[in-house]
């Protein structure tokens, strides 16, 4: 039983790598037909020799298993192939985009987690009151609306109508920054709305977890003792209750880091934020298959590693879990 989780993760990694290998190979159609046709009309036809040469060049002339072996070796070396459209190494392209996406995900989980937990504590304290009921309904609604729709609303009302924030991009194009701080300010201003959008969606989950966990803790005897001692509400809430209710919230944070990825891909496209999500859409639009595969692999690995981290942390923090 102890190794079950480890086996599960290994199996998942293996399945994803294999799936990534077979995706282009079970795709309907022939790449040479695809290359030689333009909008449904065949314009150039390859001769048999040329097709052979191309196949040898791309390593498609050997049995599938040998191809799979080569592919595995490349993945382990970190070689993700060559992007047709951007004319560059897939790994390099992805490496340039990762900081944007990761900072967005991190920031949104921190903001969303902080606000969600705070509201959850309040809700648990005033349980069954008006505030609790209103917050509960609001958070349920917020957690159900897809992130990109909230993003569109923010973009429309806060950026376009009010002009408070820049409309798109990660920083001003061709800007010359006088100082380090103005550069930072510009990037922060551009990242604010995408991060806020994702944070709003994250908030609901944190709120529910925090509220649940706090309600459980508050029914404990030591809470009654704390109240009887006449401690201030703030001290009871944040020193006595929250520290004991924190475990599920921390686990949730890591889990959220993985879960936020799907929303991030979409929200980046709403704000044209230069992360992996926007890159993935560009790659899909120009059908740059090696790049799509590279991003798919990177993103999926990130999510699974975050889930793994959530599992490990949960176990570390709570020795009762086997």
């Amino acid at each position: 039983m102890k190794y079950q989780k480890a086996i599960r993760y290994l199996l998942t990694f293996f399945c994803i790598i294999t799936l990534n290998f077979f995706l282009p190979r079970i795709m309907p159609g022939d790449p040479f037909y695809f290359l030689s046709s333009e909008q449904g009309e065949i314009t150039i036809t390859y001769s048999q020799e040329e097709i052979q040469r191309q196949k040898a060049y791309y390593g498609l002339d050997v049995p599938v298993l040998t191809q799979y072996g080569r592919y595995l070796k490349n993945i382990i070396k970190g070689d993700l192939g060559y992007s047709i459209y951007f004319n560059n190494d897939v790994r390099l392209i992805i490496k340039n985009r990762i900081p944007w996406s990761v900072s967005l995900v991190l920031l949104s989980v921190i903001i969303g987690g902080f606000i969600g937990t705070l509201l959850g504590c309040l809700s648990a304290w005033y349980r069954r009151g008006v505030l609790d009921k209103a917050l509960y309904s609001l958070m349920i609604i917020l957690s159900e609306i897809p992130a990109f729709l909230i993003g569109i609303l923010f973009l429309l009302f806060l950026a376009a109508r009010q002009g408070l924030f820049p409309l798109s991009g990660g920083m001003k194009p061709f800007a010359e920054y006088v100082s380090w701080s103005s550069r930072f300010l510009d990037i922060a201003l551009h990242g604010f709305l995408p991060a806020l959008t994702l944070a709003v969606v994250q908030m609901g989950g944190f709120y529910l977890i925090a509220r649940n966990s706090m309600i459980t803790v508050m029914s404990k005897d030591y809470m009654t003792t704390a109240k009887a001692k006449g401690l201030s509400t703030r001290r009871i809430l944040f020193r006595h209750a929250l520290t004991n209710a924190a475990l599920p919230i921390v686990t949730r944070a890591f889990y959220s880091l993985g879960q936020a990825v799907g929303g991030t891909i979409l929200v980046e496209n709403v704000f044209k934020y230069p992360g992996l999500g926007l890159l993935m859409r560009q790659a899909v639009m120009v059908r740059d298959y090696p790049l799509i595969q590279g991003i798919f692999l990177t993103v999926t690995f990130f999510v699974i590693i975050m889930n793994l981290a959530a599992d490990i942390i949960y176990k570390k923090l709570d020795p009762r879990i086997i």
Partner: protein
Amino acid sequence: MMSNILKRFSTAGKISVFLITLVCFMAIFAPLLTKHPWNQPTGDALEPPSKAHILGTDDLGIDLWSQICYGARNSIAVGIGTALTACLLGTALGIIAGYCGGIPDLVISAVIDVLTAIPGLPLMIAAGAFFGPSIKNIILILSILSWAMPARIIRSKIISLKQEMYIKAAQGYGAGFSYITIKHFLPRIFPLSATSFIRLISKAIVSEASLSFLGLGDPTSKSWGLILNYALNFPGIYFTDYWKWWLVYPLLCIILLVLSTAVIGREFEKILDTKISSVV
């Protein structure tokens, strides 16, 4: 049974049922409700809402009300198609894994584990890019990705049911797998399947809208997500007045549909006492 459940719905639940009925009505009677085709220009480009075009027109002069009515068909089709396929598959595999145990259980559980660990959207994007966007493909990919949720719940329910005396008694009298499944298991797991069915509908609608928004929707049948995609790709949509009808109506439609399916899912969970919304 259904009318009983409906009676116990809260106000929000009743409003949601009304909204969903409305959307279904729009989808089914789309040809009667619209005077303009959904795929041909019938007016000037970007007309504001008027008598002729009650919700205005888009940049090609196509009536938006028609697009939204016919788009409802796609959203509903993807939602119900996916949920039905995934739910049937998940229920069947869940029962088999739970009842048979041994190697079938090991294999099915392993597949469930892997499927729940893979993040949905990136895989959907990759698969959509490789297999081409069409309603059929979208339903297929979504079904393959979403049957694990009902299967896992039903498997554990069956395992606990198997321990009950009346099942053991039935087995003792020589009842076979299919008899026990139909007579005893199905009535007991129906609430679980029904709840996950509704949960899956709302998930599928969101996924379809997300894919369409990324430009991976079926271009031959315009869904709400695709209308959004076109509207947002229109340069300057935010600085002109066009967003007031072109962007707002499809956005409102998606949000209302998603929220009402989610509310109904929660009501079902409460009434049938099947807590399945997973938060860690």
